[in-house]
């Protein structure tokens, strides 16, 4: 890719947002290295999803700055952020269930087209070109997630995993550099989770940068190159999975609030090994 390997794709500096008296995210400074998978983890209510909502322009931060590819995007609206190359998916399978898989993906491509109402009414050349490009772009995205063969089906008729893939295809249609996945494995069984991990790896192999919020530690430990740990809206650690799982502050945060915190260390690593072999079997 054109950038220097060391330059982060996304940098946030002193990022924070208050809802009334509550600091949902507070003074977070972090960066996402390009073409890597960064996981945002933390106990429930740590501000992970809010962090995503800030980056994607869904919420306006009350403090701090966000830079993407060197450009300040702090005050941009969501559609402008998507236009710059940041796409996201939602926690639950939020897609247009009554529309076809292809239509879902074409909606994601809208940000790359300029056709407006006049183009629609007059069937201008731009309208026809945009329509064609939407279709092509959407089909490319569907091929990337392995849904090209189901383009005509209603999205709601797909399996849970299929619907997750539709959501990812919708995001990919906007041709992003950075993909934000909010709990991509929520509601998935272990096999589907492994498939999803394979897909994410493929996407990153193709030059995409991924940031994800996830609770399933097996997925996080097996997939992430880098982990950012949030607790009470603040960043308490950042590093490789190995570094983070040994970090005393992280262990304290997880053990302090959650009985499951102990899973972070060994069982997590073991889980990632297991999923790695399953992944190999699939490939």
């Amino acid at each position, binding site marked *: 890719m054109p950038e220097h390997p060391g330059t982060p794709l996304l940098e946030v500096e002193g990022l924070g947002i208050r809802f009334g008296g509550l600091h949902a995210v507070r003074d977070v400074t972090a960066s996402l290295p390009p073409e890597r998978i960064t996981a945002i983890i933390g106990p429930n209510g740590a501000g992970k999803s809010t962090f995503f909502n800030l980056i994607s322009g869904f919420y306006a931060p009350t403090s701090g700055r966000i830079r993407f590819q060197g450009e300040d995007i702090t005050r941009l609206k969501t559609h402008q952020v998507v236009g710059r190359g940041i796409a996201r998916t939602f926690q639950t399978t939020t897609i247009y269930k009554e529309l076809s898989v292809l239509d879902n993906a074409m*909606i*994601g491509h809208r*940000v790359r087209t300029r056709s407006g109402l006049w183009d629609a009414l007059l069937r201008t050349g731009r309208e026809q070109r945009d329509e064609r490009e939407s279709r092509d772009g959407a089909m490319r995205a569907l091929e990337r997630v392995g849904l090209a063969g189901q383009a005509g089906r209603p999205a709601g008729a797909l399996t849970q995993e299929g619907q997750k893939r539709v959501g990812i295809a919708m995001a990919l249609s906007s041709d992003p550099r950075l993909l934000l996945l909010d709990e991509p494995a929520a509601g998935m069984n272990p096999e589907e989770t492994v498939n999803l991990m394979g897909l994410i790896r493929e996407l990153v192999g193709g030059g995409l940068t991924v940031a994800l919020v996830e609770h399933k530690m097996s997925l996080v430990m097996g997939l992430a190159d880098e982990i950012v740990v949030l607790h009470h809206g603040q960043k308490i650690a950042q590093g490789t999975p190995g570094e983070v799982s040994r970090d005393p502050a992280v262990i304290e945060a997880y053990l302090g609030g959650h009985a499951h915190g102990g899973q972070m260390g060994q069982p997590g690593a073991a889980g990632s090994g297991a999923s790695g072999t399953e992944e190999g079997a699939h490939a």
Partner: protein
Amino acid sequence: MTRSGFKPGPLVWVAVFALAALLPLLQPGGFVLDVAINVMIWSMVAYGLNVMLGYTGQLPLAHAGFFGIGAYTVGILTLKQGWNFWLAWPAAIVICALGGLLLGLVAFRTKGDAFSIFTLGVGVIIALVINKWDSLTGGNDGLNGVPPASSLFGIDFSRSANFYYVALAALALTVLIVARTRQSVFGRSLVAIRGGEDLARSAGIDVYSHKLRALMLSTAIAGLAGGVYAAYVGFLGSAVAGPTTTFTVLLYLLVGGVGTLAGPLLGTGIVYVALQFLKGLQDYQYIVFGPLLVLLVLFAPQGLAGLWDRAQARRVQARAERAVDHA
């Protein structure tokens, strides 16, 4: 390759309009012609409302107000200013589009029910302004003697049989515009907004500007219909711009099928004609009409056109499943 190959739509529409164009040649009675022209006028308003409710998922309740603005614009310009109808009509459409823009700039700060209620208030205010602004609109007395559409290419449009074609052309234009909008890149974004505003936003759609443009189109169509109405009826009273009119049109749309292309015409035609027949019952007409409506909502919540669409969808689904089985 994924879009269902066979689309009867355009051909059916051409056939419907071709048949409708033959009606005056049969020299029907004045009553039939009057009903037909009224159905066309009101179905245009229903099409305008459908752009918002059916395709964008927003329910504005000020449409009668814009219909009134369109009608009064034509009425005032032709009656008081001596304008030619063919100039006043486009002016009415432009004014309604701009009015839609102004409304949207404020109203889209609200969402959902709040948006509907806000626009309902605006609709009431428009009707009140028309009613009270005596010097401009004639106030309570209304605007009497709006001239019929002036002759064009030697065709005398003061005759109902000829004016019928003006309404028919306006309706055809409306259907074409709405169909093209729905099928476009722009229209797909509207459907995305209908499906979920937050999702559309995060998918990269500029929700606000799309809603604004949809509302402008919607109110412009109401103005288009209002212009036809003014020239046809020749008398304008402020009541036509009030909320009762809005809800009547909404009823047409609900019966015909929200979000469908045939729905507005179908619903307006059936309800308007049915109400003509029930007119003999006077105030009791709604005792008959009410239960019919309840039955419709129970058994065809998507309206009459929705029934057809559902059957169609089942057929497509069955075909897709057969194709999967074969593969």
